[in-house]
Every structure is written in structure tokens, then in C-alpha cells.
């Protein structure tokens, strides 16, 4: 049985088609990432899969349960960590977890055991009786991950799990997630617009404007771009691009005055290139393609690492005021 099986799922808001007939399947124990810019349809897809939003068309099964007809079964079998904190900041860490245990009907003995184990795992056991409002952003996110796992879900949904966290905390959280997947054979479905975060996934679906434009392992996606990336700059970029086109039969791109193109086995290519290039080279670079390059070549635009939109900023502002 697939952990998640999606067929032609779509959803529109008014005139905007947020998700357009997407299909994919996720195996049990897989870490699967949805990579795309803000507004690409990632959160809408998650909300449909976790039964918060009714799909406009198509169907999906999570752990074998239909997301429309078996909503309670779906809910019981999944854990969720949202983009924005959904903790009760007036309650302690332990009280938040206990509330969750009650709400999901976890038997008392198992509940207390899980609370102990999970709080220990995310290194918050010592602070279990502290109110959540005294926690840092990273601690809150760890607590939310612990809470999402309390009722032994088989799939964990993470919507931008490390948004707004510092690199160290992000690495820390990923260590937990890898550990968890091994220990509990957990399937993890996450959305992100961070390229380096997507590297943690077994497979990635690149999503743009509500459509899946590519789906493969991170390495597979990078290879599909066409090998290593050569970048160089010179006085006349247009003429240089023309030379590359004729000499090596590849289509170069010009970005910020730099000429970029992909070649296989760049290490052996580069010495020849430097010798053969007729003009004076100002700089030459060679690197393995990143997912950023993958996204650029698939969609023709860069993933906009856009800041939180205005509404989110407003909400954060209000929360600060009221605390």
C-alpha cells in the first residue's frame, strides 16, 4: 500500500487555480518534498491531504483512507506541523502534548510514555513545565514536531518545517527527522522553498503555478539539467554566448552579465575551454548544479525566496503586541 496516493487533485479559489490536476504516489518510509515558490500550491495540497480543505476535483488516499469519505481515519493516521505555530502559548509544553493526546484519544499509559520519550528526543524534557510563550522559535518548532508524532501517525506532514529558523536549528531539526524516519518507519511529506532543505528528501516534486513540473531524486533532477555548470564572464557576453553555441552545441544563458551553460564532466572540459576561448576571460567557474539551477532550467525563473507576505508580517506584529 502507498502511504499517499494522489490522482488528478485540483482546487481553485475563485478564479485562481491553486492546484491543477496533480498526481503522485509516495511509498511508506519515504521522505518526499514539494519544492516551489510561495503561492505555487504547496500549502493548498497539504491542506487537502490532511482534510482541512475539500478538493475541487480528483481524489487522494492517505494511508489507504479516502481524504473526503474517511476524514477521521485520515486525521488519526497523520501528524501535522504547520507553517505558523499552532501551540497554545499560555499552556506548558507538557499540557500542549497532553491536550493533543486527549484530542486523539491516545490511551493514558501510552500517552504519558510518548510524552516522556518525545520530549526527551527533542531535548525539551527539562522544560516540560514551562509555558510555551517563553520558548524560542526553534524550541516551538521542535515541540510541534513532537506533538505531531504523539498519536503514532504513519505519515508526518511538515509545511515549511524550518521557515524562519537559523541554519543551526534547521540542521538540528533535520537530524531529528532522519532519526525518526529510521526509528518509526515514518513517511514524511514536506513542503519547502529552501533548496538546501529539499536535499534531505529521497524524492522531490518541483511545483510551480499549481503543476508538478518534475519529480525525481535530488541527484536525478540535477543530472537531468545536463551535468556540471560552467559560468564565465568576459567583456562581450553576447559574442561569448555565440561562440559557445557554435563551438559546443549547447544553449547558454546570460544572467547578470555571466554566461552559463551545462557540460558533462566539467573537470576535463574546463582546461580545453580556457585554451580555446578567443577573448580574454575575466572569471571562470565550475560547479555541480544545485536545485536552484534545476528550478531555473525547469521553470525559466528563479525560485523567489520571497519574504513572508504582508499578511503574515501583520499577524506576527499583532502577536508581538498582544504578548
Amino acid at each position: 500500500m502507498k502511504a499517499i496516493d494522489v490522482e488528478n487533485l485540483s482546487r481553485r479559489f475563485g478564479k485562481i487555480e491553486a492546484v491543477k490536476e496533480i498526481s503522485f504516489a509516495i511509498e511508506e518510509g519515504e521522505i518526499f518534498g514539494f519544492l516551489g515558490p510561495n503561492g505555487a500550491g504547496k500549502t493548498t495540497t497539504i491542506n487537502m491531504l490532511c482534510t482541512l480543505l475539500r478538493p475541487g476535483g480528483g481524489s487522494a488516499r492517505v494511508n489507504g483512507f479516502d481524504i473526503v469519505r474517511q476524514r477521521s481515519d485520515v486525521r488519526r493516521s497523520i501528524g501535522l506541523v504547520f507553517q505558523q505555530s499552532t501551540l497554545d502559548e499560555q499552556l506548558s509544553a507538557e499540557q500542549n502534548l497532553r491536550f493533543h493526546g486527549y484530542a486523539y484519544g491516545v490511551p493514558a499509559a501510552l500517552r504519558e510514555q510518548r510524552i516522556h520519550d518525545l520530549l526527551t528526543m527533542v531535548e525539551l524534557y527539562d522544560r516540560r513545565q514551562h509555558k510555551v510563550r517563553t520558548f524560542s522559535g526553534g524550541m516551538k518548532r521542535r515541540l510541534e514536531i513532537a506533538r505531531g508524532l504523539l498519536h503514532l501517525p504513519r505519515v508526518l506532514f511538515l509545511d515549511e518545517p524550518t521557515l524562519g529558523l537559523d541554519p543551526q536549528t534547521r540542521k538540528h531539526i533535520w537530524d531529528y527527522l532522519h532519526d525518526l524516519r529510521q526509528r518509526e518507519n515514518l513517511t514524511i511529506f514536506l513542503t519547502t522553498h529552501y533548496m538546501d532543505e529539499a536535499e534531505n528528501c529521497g524524492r522531490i516534486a518541483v511545483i510551480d503555478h499549481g503543476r508538478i513540473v518534475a519529480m525525481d531524486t535530488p541527484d536525478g533532477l540535477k543530472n537531468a539539467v545536463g551535468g556540471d555548470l560552467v559560468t564565465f564572464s568576459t567583456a562581450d557576453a553576447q559574442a561569448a554566448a555565440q561562440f559557445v553555441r557554435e563551438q559546443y552545441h549547447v544553449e547558454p544563458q546570460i544572467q547578470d552579465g555571466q554566461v552559463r551553460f551545462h557540460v558533462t564532466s566539467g573537470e576535463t572540459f574546463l582546461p580545453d575551454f580556457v585554451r580555446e576561448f578567443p577573448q580574454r576571460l575575466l572569471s571562470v567557474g565550475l560547479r555541480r548544479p544545485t536545485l536552484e539551477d534545476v528550478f531555473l532550467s525547469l521553470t525559466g525563473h528563479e525560485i523567489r525566496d520571497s519574504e513572508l507576505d504582508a499578511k503574515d508580517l501583520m499577524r506576527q506584529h499583532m502577536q508581538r503586541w498582544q504578548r
Partner: protein
Amino acid sequence: MTEIWRGVWVVAYREILRFVGDRARFLSSFAMPLLFLIIFGAGFTRTIGALAQGVNYIQFMYPGIIAMTVLTSSLFAGMSVVADREFGFLKEILVAPIGRTGIVLGKAAGGSLVALIQALVMLVLAPILGVKLTPTLVLSLIPVVIILSLGLSSLGVLIASFMQSQQGFQLFVQILIFPLIFLAGVFFPVNNVPAWMEIISKVNPLTYGVDAIRQIFLGSAHGLGVTVFGHVMTVPSEMALVGVLGAFLLLGAVIVFNRQE
């Protein structure tokens, strides 16, 4: 069905937990009732004298102030829905396998329990005001407060379903609360006022809640009770009226909350 019940108790449990954990809210919720009791009591008791045999003004007003505490505290149940929405916790509740109906019933039940606790705390003042408390009085007060506060909590949740911000909710409830309180016979008997005011007061459902609580404290023999078309209202009939209205409000809240995405 088990999901709904689990929802009711888990949501109500959290309301109580938050109430107990927030000392500032607990203390401030007594500020207004105490202010009214002290200022109006001190200001009017001597001027007005006895309203009936053995009932001075402050003893008349005191049961009304208890009803007022119940009103403000119950409407707070709605405030917590808006706050949960604003701070994101509502999402945690919405995705739990407990169903929307359970959430609404739990919010109403939680608000009602908090209101009951506050009403009982208000009883501490009784000896100071020269009001005699008996076990029977307290026991008959409890169901009346529960029926009244369930209806009012439902109203709070219903209002909250249409509100996006706490400020908006607060403003709306402020506007609603004052006419409700002033025209419910908290501060003066509604039988002896100009006709227009009498009509409004007798349409105001809170009037019957106030009167029921007052009858429990003062008995019904003082001629201060509310009459409708010449009939003196009894506590059971008043509770039936408040209860039916409350049931409609609760149903309304459940329907509206279920319909929202």
C-alpha cells in the same frame, strides 16, 4: 458520537486550564461587578432605602450583579474562539479527529463552567452584604447559572464565528453588553419603569436570568418579580424560556461553525 463527546470534554478542559492559569484574567473579571456593587451600593442604598420588606438596595442589586458576572464571563467563550483563530491554535483543534460540533459544544461548556466558578466566587461577598446563604440556595443557584451561561456562551461562540480579530469581537460585545445589562433589571425593578423601557426589558432574555437568580436569593414574595401579561414569572418558567433560547443559539453556533471552511 464518541468523537463529539471527546471533543466536548477536551475543549472544555482546556478552557478551564487556561482560566486557572491566567490569574490576571480571573481577578480582572471581578473588577466591573465589584465596582458596580461598591459605587452603586454606597451611592444609592441610603437614598433608596428598603425596596421591599427587609430588602435594601444593595441586597436587591447583588443577585443582578451575579447574573452580570455570568454574562460577561460566558461571552468570553467566544473571545477564546477568536483568540485561537488569531494565534493558530484553532487549526490544531480543527484537524484533530473530534468534529466541529464537539468543538462548539466544548467551547460553550467550558465557558459555562468558567462562568459557574466565577458566580460561586461572587458568593464570598454575601455575608458582607448581609445576605444569608443556605445550602439549598447554593444548590438551586447552580443549575440556573448553568442554563443561563450555556445560552450566553453559545451566543459568544456564534458572534465569534463572524469575527476575525479579537479587537472586533471585543468592540461588538461591548456594544451588546451594556444595553443588555442596563435593561435587564440588574439595577432597578423592571415593573416600575416607563412603558417603552418595560417592553425592551421584557424582550431582553437576560431579564429572566437576572430575575431567576434574584428569586433564588430573595424569594418570590416581595413583589419585585417580573410580570408578563399580569403573570408573575416563576423560576422554572424563566429557566424554560432561557433554556429554549439558549438551545437555539447553541444550534445556530454549531451550524455556522460547521459551515465554515
